[in-house]
């Protein structure tokens, strides 16, 4: 099978990334032996550090990186545009706004599921709006403008919530959360997000065939027997679930969904369906590495992972815009 080698490499990358995620600390490279030492003297604390801090963080990096990667690949396939991505399309901003509302009104304290549900609602609204506004096979410019508009609306509403925040402390908490981070997340966060991400990713995977057909345009796809209504539904709801649940747990982590499919596409014969599972693994590996690097490089306060991905991803996006102009 073509692409088997790609999956092997991606699987290895995820494993290495996961190992790094478990072992790298701020004070240096593999400090696993510190943990080993601790294990000898104080096995209880060592176990706590591993299971309460490191493992949830690693699992979240895999789940959220994967969710962003596969969502990016799916949105690109549906909109037939290599620049589509949860962040650029406004899905992340919509999810962030609704999650902020859940924080703000304190729903999240009484009812933990409120957070992912709010995030999912926000992402769903944003993706649906984008799909209606930009339409199918819209030119890149329309797509990006629609995404900018949706992000701007969600951003404005988020700012309003901050502006009206009851205390500066609450405002700072919200700002820090929205920068995007995997720090201090617990197994509870993993369990909150995982089911939605898994269901969302599964929905997206079943839409793969339809995305392949869409390569030749809507009319050709329809003539080939693709159920386009079903494909659209699966992608829109699947990304809504995956991105919404991710953002509600980690805040906005941008550009993973743009970079992962972009890098992998040539190795999978540019086939949208084959790109979906690969982008999940690729996104997971990217986020694991980005998180480990952010932790290792942090000088004073820990770098927020969302800041790191944006610093690397935004120039990449600019380059992709130039590249797409060259092609056109």
């Amino acid at each position, binding site marked *: 099978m073509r692409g088997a080698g790609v999956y092997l490499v991606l699987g290895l990358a995820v494993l290495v990334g996961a190992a790094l995620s478990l072992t790298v600390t701020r004070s240096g490279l593999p400090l696993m032996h510190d943990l080993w030492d601790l294990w000898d003297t104080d096995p209880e604390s060592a176990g706590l550090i591993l299971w309460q801090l490191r493992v949830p963080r690693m699992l979240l990096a895999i789940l959220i990186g994967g969710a962003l990667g596969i969502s990016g690949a799916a949105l690109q396939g549906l909109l037939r545009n290599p620049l589509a991505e949860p962040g650029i399309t406004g899905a992340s901003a919509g999810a962030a706004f609704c999650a902020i509302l859940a924080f703000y009104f304190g729903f999240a304290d009484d009812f933990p599921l409120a957070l992912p549900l709010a995030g999912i609602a926000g992402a769903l609204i944003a993706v649906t709006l984008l799909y209606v506004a930009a339409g199918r096979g819209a030119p890149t410019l329309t797509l990006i403008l629609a995404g900018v508009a949706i992000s701007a609306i969600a951003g404005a509403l988020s700012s309003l919530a901050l502006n009206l925040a009851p205390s500066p402390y609450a405002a700072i908490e919200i700002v820090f959360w929205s920068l995007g981070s995997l720090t201090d997340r617990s197994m509870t966060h993993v369990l909150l997000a995982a089911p939605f991400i898994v269901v969302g990713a599964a929905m997206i995977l*079943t839409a793969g065939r339809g995305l392949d057909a869409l390569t030749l345009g809507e009319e050709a796809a329809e003539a080939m027997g693709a159920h386009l209504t079903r494909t659209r539904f699966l992608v829109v709801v699947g990304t809504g679930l995956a991105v919404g649940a991710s953002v509600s747990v980690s805040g906005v982590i941008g550009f993973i969904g743009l970079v992962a499919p972009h890098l992998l596409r040539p190795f999978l014969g540019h086939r949208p369906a084959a790109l979906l599972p690969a982008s999940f693994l690729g996104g997971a590996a990217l986020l694991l590495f980005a998180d480990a690097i952010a932790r290792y490089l942090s000088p004073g306060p820990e770098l927020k992972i969302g800041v790191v991905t944006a610093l690397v991803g935004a120039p990449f996006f600019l380059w992709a815009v130039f590249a797409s102009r060259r092609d056109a």
Partner: protein
Amino acid sequence: MSLAAENLRVMRGPRPVLDGVSLALTPGALTAILGPNGAGKTTLVRALAGVLTPQSGRVTLDGTALAAIAPDARAGRIAYLPQGRDAAWNMRAADVVALGRFHAQRLLRPLSDDDRRAIARAMVEADVVGLAERGVKTLSGGEFARVLLARALAVEAPVMLADEPVAGLDPAHQLRVMAALQARAREGVAAAIVMHDLTLAAQFCDRIVLLADGRIAADGTPDAVLTEEILFGVYGVRLTRGAGFGPAV
């Protein structure tokens, strides 16, 4: 399998693009749909293919309304090559041709031997075997057009509709593609193609449907339809038939 349109009417704004068109495509015949720009040729094949719903009238496949047939069942019976030639991704030409077997495939099921045979045959007929490994975005317009035709041929449907399959092809490939379509018709396929080249139509097609202003101006054998008077009535220029068609002197 026969595909029939009854009294099709399609409006674009206040203007009818098709106005009372009835047409039946029968197995074994290659039909050319000719007519000036804007006559409604593309609209007619889109309606026949089931990707456009007419305001009134209906299209039936062996007596069953097209709208009542499930998309994948319809896709296996009617192969349709749209006019738009556009690929979003730089997929390999062989993978694009394989999309012709879309209707026969299911999630996670690899191509069957039957699928592979249909794909290989279509690639020979459209002369794209040498392009198999190339990315479609690196192909020339004519090469890509042939890849898309191979995709439609790979369906191996009993009804085949193609919108300008020879536009943009070099003369040798025009002849080769027309011969392949004619051969398919001889095997019992009901085939209709939109085209502009009167000479090729006269040479390869069994039947000519001449559209003008959304109506059928003439329908019959090439000899009956491609006469100087009828062509003058539709195109407004005097064309005579010599070795091919040219301006009357």
